[in-house]
């Protein structure tokens, strides 16, 4: 599992994840992801287009970070999920806690809206 970050705007940080968010994958990135996202001081958009699987620990990571950002009046927004990953998000109603957008533009609007 790999993680990259980009400065999207003054109020938005972009993070892209690559690989599988199963238990070992989450172990690889959780500390860096959580640290980067919660210290950003701005909204965080996560590109999942290169993530082939998200398991329960991945969901937990997203929920935890979303809650932490919410306390700082910022949002975590996920976008670009592949169909199987999107199915998982729909099954657990993740969108009720963490906004899930189709693409980067929709994610930006969801963060600022």
């Amino acid at each position, binding site marked *: 599992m790999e993680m990259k970050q980009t400065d999207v705007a003054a109020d938005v940080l972009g993070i892209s994840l690559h690989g599988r968010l*199963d*238990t070992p994958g989450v172990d690889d990135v959780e500390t860096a992801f959580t640290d980067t996202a919660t210290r950003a001081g701005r909204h965080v958009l996560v590109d999942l287009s290169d993530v*082939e*699987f998200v*398991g*329960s*620990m991945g*969901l*937990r990571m997203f*929920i*935890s970070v979303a*809650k932490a950002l919410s306390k700082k009046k910022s949002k975590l927004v996920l976008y670009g999920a592949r169909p*199987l990953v999107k*199915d998982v998000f729909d*099954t*657990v*109603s*993740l969108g*009720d*806690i963490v906004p899930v957008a189709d693409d980067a533009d929709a994610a930006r609007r969801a963060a600022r809206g």
Partner: protein
Amino acid sequence: MARGDQAAHTVLATHATVADVIAQREELRSYVVVIENDEPIARHLLDAEPLTVGRDESRHIVIPDARVSRLHLQVFAANGAVVAEDLGSSNGTFYEGRRIAGPVVLPEGHFLQVGSRLLKHERRSRREVEREDELRRDLDKAGSYVRALLPAPIAHGPIRTDWFYRPSTQLGGDAFAYDLLDDDHVYACLIDVSGHGAGAAMHTVAVMNVLRRRALPDTDFRDPAAVLAGLNAMFQMDDHDGLYFTLWYGVYCVSQRRLSYGSAGHHPAYLYPPGGASVPLRTPGMMVGAMPGARFKAGSTDVPPGSALYLFSDGVFETTTPDGRQCGLDDFLPLLGRGPEGPGESEAIYRAVRQGARPGPLDDDFSLLVVRFA
């Protein structure tokens, strides 16, 4: 002191420093792990001497399987690699689905198939092996405890059940239950706690005990939405080390032939009426423990005589094929409703899933409950 005197009084001694000992324990070594029914049952260190494998008791790795020759193959280290060589066995040794002819390199993490067993090449330090063995013992105890909570299959009566449960090597958080609520109502549920290991198992046990003892205050256990809301209030993830769980909970009214159900972040259960199309049973709702005050809904459906309900965890369909493709629910559904009905149906479905997945243990717990309604 003269040289001769020095020789007469020379004392040879080895003095291992702490650093030496630490280095020895950290050095990676190759092991061959024997896997039976998805469970690692033995680990053999590969050192200078080749490991022989066969049915004969004199081999380093003994496989009591009629399909295995008395001396079947050997595994040895050569030029930094681990090599497997079939020694003219009758039924062959298989690597990546093909019978090997001649020595083949077995990379780390890869498997050989010999009869009913898998042999896996692992690289571990001594310290890792010791820690894994200790963890394995703890997980086995936790797994035994969870298994002890599972209800016995029901072979006779208006409701019959058959189930198959195979925890992953990391012990996930699956469990299920069913029981009478009163003379006219039966409940069935399946829970999947996030993560793996003893922590997830402990959380599973806590939730299952609340359900088994009806220990939710002011809650009608015949109302799935109320049960989900009660569990959500009791098990918020912020109070339980970040753990949440998904749950499917259903209540069958025998006299009305009506099934009420609710799901929290869980994929559907599937009802198969005789001769009819399957009906997915699911209600919208997030997983339990994710958010205080979350709302849950209940649905209901009639249950024609002879119907079957399939309730399962995501470990049954989130598998990986031998060529690395991630499977999903749509890959699993065709295995349901084909019978044969009765004891062993759920295990037969497990075997079909196992056959379609890559070698080695499944990634997550496999839990499948089949309920048949007379």
